[in-house]
């Protein structure tokens, strides 16, 4: 592997590996992909994402793209959105999807899980006020149904309302006479998401593919990985 990298690059990769938790091989592969997407430029823009053919038929494409440019996800304690991202930010966002490694303590696993759920929460909470309001939630549902035309429009409201009702009832319980339920805070989100096994399992994505690519000069093999359903 040393033959393919110059030493400074390798040092960068090692730093990144420490920061994000990926292995150096995985970072190498992701860097290749980054260069492919950005056409060998330093920074990646929204248009580059939009050019990905696989994303074209994804109903939540715009939200995914936004997530990559959302500065809250860069772990730098900043807000707002960026116009273009570098490889380090790209890698940081991708690191939300790696599975917990075997030698993590329980605390670290908990932190990782929390970070993942925070990422998910940020995807929904577009105006960055710390709560997912009914409007934002409805936007999510509408996007999911965005391929269904008129049918989706009308029932999206009903679905959103029912869903919010449920979140409110499970997280707040019996509300006082003057309470108005403003929106889902992150704590409520954790509580609501917690019992969903399918949700938890999916957060740990299949980047194990990269683990098994032993030859870095080879492009990532087609690999049908396993996403087991996980109960923590």
């Amino acid at each position, binding site marked *: 592997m040393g033959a393919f990298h110059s030493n400074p690059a390798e040092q960068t990769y090692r730093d990144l590996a420490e920061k994000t938790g990926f292995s150096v091989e995985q970072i190498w592969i992701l860097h290749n992909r980054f260069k492919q997407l950005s056409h060998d430029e330093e920074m990646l823009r929204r248009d580059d994402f939009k050019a990905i053919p696989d994303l074209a038929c994804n109903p939540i494409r715009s939200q995914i793209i936004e997530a990559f440019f959302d500065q809250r996800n860069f772990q730098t304690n900043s807000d707002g959105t960026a116009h273009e991202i570098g490889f380090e930010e790209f890698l940081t966002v991708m690191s939300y999807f790696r599975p917990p490694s075997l030698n993590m303590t329980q605390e670290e696993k908990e932190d990782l899980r929390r970070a993942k759920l925070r990422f998910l929460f940020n995807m929904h909470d577009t105006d960055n006020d710390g709560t997912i309001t*009914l409007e934002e939630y409805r936007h999510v549902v509408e996007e999911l149904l965005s391929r269904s035309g008129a049918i989706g429009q009308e029932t999206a409201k009903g679905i959103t309302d029912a869903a919010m009702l449920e979140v409110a009832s499970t997280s707040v319980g019996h509300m006082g006479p003057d309470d108005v339920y403003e929106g889902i805070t992150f704590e409520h989100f954790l509580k609501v998401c917690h019992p969903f096994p399918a949700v938890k399992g999916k957060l740990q994505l299949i980047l194990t593919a990269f683990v098994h690519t032993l030859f870095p000069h080879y492009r990532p093999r087609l690999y049908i990985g396993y996403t087991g359903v996980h109960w923590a």
Partner: protein
Amino acid sequence: MPVVLCSCAPEAAEMPARCRWAGAWRTFPRVRWVFLLALFAGAVASASAGQVNDTDSGATGGEGTGHHSRRAFPVLAVNYEYIRMPFEISLWILLASFMKLGFHLIPRLSGVVPESCLLIAVGLVVGGLIRLMGETPPVLSYNLFFLCLLPPIILDAGYFLPMRPFSENVGTILVFAVVGTLWNAFFMGATLFGVCQAVGGQLESVGLLACLLFGAIVSAVDPVAVLAVFEEIHINELLHILVFGESLLNDAVTVVLYHLFEEFGNVGIVTLADVFLGIICFLVVAMGGIMVGAVYGVLAAFTSRFTSHTRVIEPLFVFLYSYMAYLSAEVFHLSGIMALIACGVVMRPYVEANISHKSYTTIKYFLKMWSSVSETLIFIFLGVSTVAGPHAWNWPFVIATIFLCLISRVLGVIGLTFVINKFRIVKLSNKDQFIVAYGGLRGAIAFSLAFVLSAKHFPMKNMFLTAIITVIFFTVFVQGMTIRPLVELLAVKKKKETKHSINEEIHTQFLDHLLTGIEGVCGHYGHHHWKDKLNRFNKMYVKRWLIAGERSTEPQLISFYHKLELKQALMLAESGSTAKLPSIPSSASMQGESMRRSTRGRALPQISKVKEEEIRKILRANLQKTRQRLHSYNRHTLIADPFEDNWTEVRLRKKRVEMERRMSHYLTVPAKQQDCSPVRRVRFESDNQVYSSNLNPGSPMFHNDDPPVMEVARAPIARMDSVSLVDDSSRPQDSETARSSSGQTLAVSEFKDGDLRIPCCRSDPRPNLNEEADSTFLS
């Protein structure tokens, strides 16, 4: 006739027994039932044993009438032969059902001993009784088992297979099923051969092939036994699907190995070509079975598209196509079990979209009923066959078999998990491995397969049978009984009783799309990518063909939401007529309870009696007006068939609106208000017309001179702009007027008069008001 006599005899014996134990009889009702059950068992035994005598008396009776032409006209004649077969079958099924009843009447017993053990014990008792009568008990024959008793269980399992955990773990399941079973078979066969040679004596004549065949038969985990035991221990879904999936999918391996070794057993020599052919055969059997099942599944789905006018026979199609898939696969020696599973899995989403709700319920209950009875009968017959069959006990062989079963299973699971964990995200812990290994129960399939071995080619058949029965007894009794305390001891995660809520569905779908998108960004074609492609293919082409009407274009989230609504609507309909304050079910159940509780003790705004009367008059008038139209939608005739489709649609729409209404109130209005509004809503909700109001009595707006506008919107899906009030509750009027202009309103002017305080009446929880409205509405 002997049967009549036999059944009379126990009754005659009962009388003195009653007199004698009158005291005990009364104080221990359970004793009564158990006693009657025992008597019934005896009756069944005597009935099936009493056949031999019947034929003689029947014959003589016939002859008698022939000879004496001047005999008196027989007023009462008995002809048992005529109905013998169906009668016996019915008696057996009745016995099985009574046993099931009986076990649940004795509460402590069903908690300690799994049902399967009790049923085998009952079978032993019945078999013993039959033996005592001097007759030969019926044996679990191959045809009976594989053609009648097994298909319902497998269909039930396949049709209700939870697809998500199954498809996520399908790799693990396949590895366990194929590689695990192969390992078990060969390890057991080879080691047993070694044991036989080592022990010598009688066992020396057992050849390697015979041992391998025996190993193949015994090594397969049995779905019936696994279902029976695992259902009671409520283990978490992952382990359940692993063991259960393995038991289903290993059928292909078992079939191939069985036929392979049986063939070779005849020939005596194995060549490399044969091994190669065996592998090809396995692929053909497995894939062929799945193909056959899929084809029949598609046919069933297609047929169900046209059944909208003949709802009554819809379940019949489901059952018939599945059964034919099974039989067709068995014709070619393909794996019938896999065909059945494939058929159920393929047809389910389309059939459920097409059939009526009642047909769905029918299918569900029939499948559960049949599979339950089948399972009971299988275990009882297993017990009976144990008593019946010729046994050849051989200590070393049997002990070796049991040990080797356990050891090979444990080694296999550990070894395979070691390899699988490298590929799994969620590793299988040691506890999981233990449960998977311990849950590998053997059952009636092994017994039936051994039973049909030809005694000519396998002179050790009886010994094999005995060993298999012993293994089955060991696994079912020892492992079945101890698995529950072990699960508790090891603190294995139990199944979580979460209701499938709308939030979960939204999140799961969102994550699916998110992960597919991330895969796209990575340029990596993984699990999600292919799943997404399959879904899109499904949506674009398959659903158009197989689902009738507009439901073919309905996205999954919406159909899920509709199902949820329908469920809630049904629950409301059921509970509404009995309870004054219907509970808001499932997803908002907690809220419903809190609402009900707080309804009792709430501060009431005071309104004058006069106003109240006015309100009531107006309400009654309007309710009566709508009642003619509602007549067919009355709660009691709601269930009538001809209206069912319309009703479902209307009901769904109303339910949707009702939920929207409730939502808007919940989010805009202080919580106490919604206590009454859903009540009121439910009353009105059955109307074709929908009363809507988004008033906020707690806010200062209420005391404005602006009257609360009572809008009767004809449009079933009202636009709920009021939800935007979540942040700003001071603009109810704007959205109202906006709505009133957009929706079609009926007699709005009637209510624009100043002195109407409709919300007042809504918030009025006084029972008499509700009752009145209730009685006028529901009469």
